[in-house]
């Protein structure tokens, strides 16, 4: 009886250890060091990155990789408070493009989960045979080095002194900023109705803005009310124009008779900096053959921008807004350093797209 119990405990322990090893990626790690196909090698590398085992991931790379350890970690884990530093690799998809006996090219699609949704990173990765295993060649990320310099910035900022609550009725106060919806277009999309358009801060002070829309039936009763959430630049400086998009999932266009729009603005303290230029914007196809609007963001100020969101308004040949898309940039915008971005263009919008306009929302950590 005593021996049976000891054997039972021993067997259970072995099973649990094996289970833990399997769960912690031991199988994949084993596969990595014995990756017999290029796809296995890339998948194993992704597993290490997913588990944040950057040292092991770096050790598995082809020695010919140009990346050193710190640049590799910066590339996959992010730096400078960028969105990537708040993200984790959710999944990866590997598809072979070309292979011979010693080299292969695979398309790697990494899906990162972040607080603002999932972010795709598509790269074509080279894999080389190293004896009996395959190893990924991870090129050194191109980092533009800006020479040391002093960037003079005349910071411009608005502060608000509101009405004292102890003052009597009728005491002087400052009005909310005056904003105007300059265009609105209701479009039908599969499974939803979408309101797109633009809004302008017509005032001389900054505005914190929300645009809401209410879909109305023929009898004037509301169907649903939604706000623009993050598909708008909420803080608008004087005379700044922002696109907005409001989605109504599950609503059919034929049920909508009219739309009631409501732009609410608050007077808020704001800064006129940083200035972010959006250069070399072009329409092209990405690695997955989707139409994308690509370009580069250049932070023209002297302080880093940690998280940037690109908002793009697409116009048809009559100048009407036909779609508003957005995309987050997972790198921090360091001063004067161009950072690439890409924003999707839906397939049915692309043929009608004649012009576009891009703006950038930004977030900077205090003191960074």
């Amino acid at each position, binding site marked *: 009886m005593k021996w049976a119990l000891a054997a039972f405990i021993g067997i259970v322990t072995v099973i649990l250890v094996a289970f833990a090893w399997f769960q912690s990626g031991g199988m994949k790690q084993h596969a990595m060091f014995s990756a017999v196909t290029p796809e296995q090698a890339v998948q194993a590398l992704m597993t290490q990155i997913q588990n944040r085992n950057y040292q092991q991931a770096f050790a598995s790379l082809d020695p010919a990789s140009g990346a050193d350890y710190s640049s590799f970690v910066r590339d996959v884990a992010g730096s400078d408070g960028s969105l990537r530093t708040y993200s984790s690799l959710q999944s990866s998809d590997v598809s072979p493009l070309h292979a011979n006996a010693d080299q292969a090219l695979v398309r790697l699609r990494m899906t990162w989960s972040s607080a603002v949704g999932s972010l795709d990173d598509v790269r074509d990765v080279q894999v080389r045979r190293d004896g009996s295993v395959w190893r990924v060649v991870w090129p050194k990320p191109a980092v533009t080095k800006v020479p040391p310099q002093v960037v003079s910035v*005349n910071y*411009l900022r*608005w502060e608000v002194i509101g009405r004292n609550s102890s003052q*009597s*009725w*009728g005491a*002087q*106060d*400052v*009005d909310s900023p*005056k904003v105007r919806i*300059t265009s609105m277009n209701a479009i039908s999309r599969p499974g939803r109705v979408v309101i797109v358009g633009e809004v*302008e801060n*017509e*005032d*001389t*002070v*900054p505005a914190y803005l929300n645009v809401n829309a209410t879909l109305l039936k023929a009898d004037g009763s509301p169907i649903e009310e939604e706000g623009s959430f993050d598909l708008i630049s909420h803080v608008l*400086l*004087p*005379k*700044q*124009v922002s696109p907005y998009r409001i989605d109504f999932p599950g609503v059919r266009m034929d049920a909508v008779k009219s739309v009631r729009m409501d732009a609410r603005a608050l007077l808020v303290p704001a800064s*006129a*900096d940083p*200035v*972010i*230029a*959006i*250069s*070399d*914007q*072009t329409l092209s196809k990405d690695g997955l053959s989707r139409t994308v609007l690509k*370009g580069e963001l250049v932070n*023209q100020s002297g302080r880093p921008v940690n998280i940037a969101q690109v908002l793009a308004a697409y116009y048809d040949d009559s100048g009407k807004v036909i779609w508003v898309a957005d995309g987050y940039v997972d790198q921090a915008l360091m001063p004067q350093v161009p950072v690439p971005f890409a924003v999707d263009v839906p397939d049915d919008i692309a043929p009608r797209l004649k012009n*576009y*306009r*891009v*703006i950038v929302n930004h977030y900077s950590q205090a003191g960074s």
Partner: protein
Amino acid sequence: MADLGPFFPRLSRLTLLCLLSGLAWSADLHVPANVEAGKAFSIPAEGSGEATFYLVGPDHVAKRTVNLGGAVQIESSEVRAAGRYQAILCGSSCSSATFQVKASQPARLSFFLHPSRVPVSMPDSVDATAFVFDQYQNLVLSPNSVDFRVTPATGAAFSKQSPAKNGVAWMRMNSTPHEGRVQVTAALGKVEEARVIQQVAAEACGLRIKATSSGSIMTVETDPVRDCSGNALPDGTVVSFTNIDRAGKSTVDTPIKKGVARGQFRVHGTAHINVACGVVLGNELALKGSL
């Protein structure tokens, strides 16, 4: 007075007093027809012995024992609120009378000036509304004339008289052509209340840019950005530069600083650079870059 039990749990003292005054046998109670708020007065109380006097007003109720055959003294503090009052005198029987308390002399103005910021030269863009109150916060309904005095930052001051109707006087005016502080004072007798609006530049007018190149970098700068009346647009106003060249389209939204806005582009080949401020477009430059 206590509540009347479970059947009348919410019957208030005030309601009961009103009920009593309606049901009781009424003797004459001589009250003045109109009383000025905050002025003491007396009500003759005929008869002899003691009685209970109630005064029910818009903002308070008073009760006290009085001696009949004299006068019931109403203190100034008991009639501060304008409105309808009811006096009830209960001895062997009850009698009641109503009287009206009217606001006293204007002592305060509540002044609303809207908006707090307004673009220059906008017709009917400024609303001034003054509410006339006495020293006890009663709206003064008697006819009065409020003087609205307007003092712009530049140019001559002017004023406009407006009669107060039902305690409210108002006027509407155009904003003047020059930016800056405009003080509007509402005055009624010795009572004055001042407010300030900020007149700001209107939309940009004649927006023009010029460019200078430094290597591959093209710096684009606006002329001082002004509206059609010559007022400078305030710093922080966003100006959008757009450059279209061989590499695609480049844009930069940059705030006006010290009167002008600047943007920088790397220009590839022939470039067309234009400028906009809000919904106003400026000129376009055609340039050749060094890249």
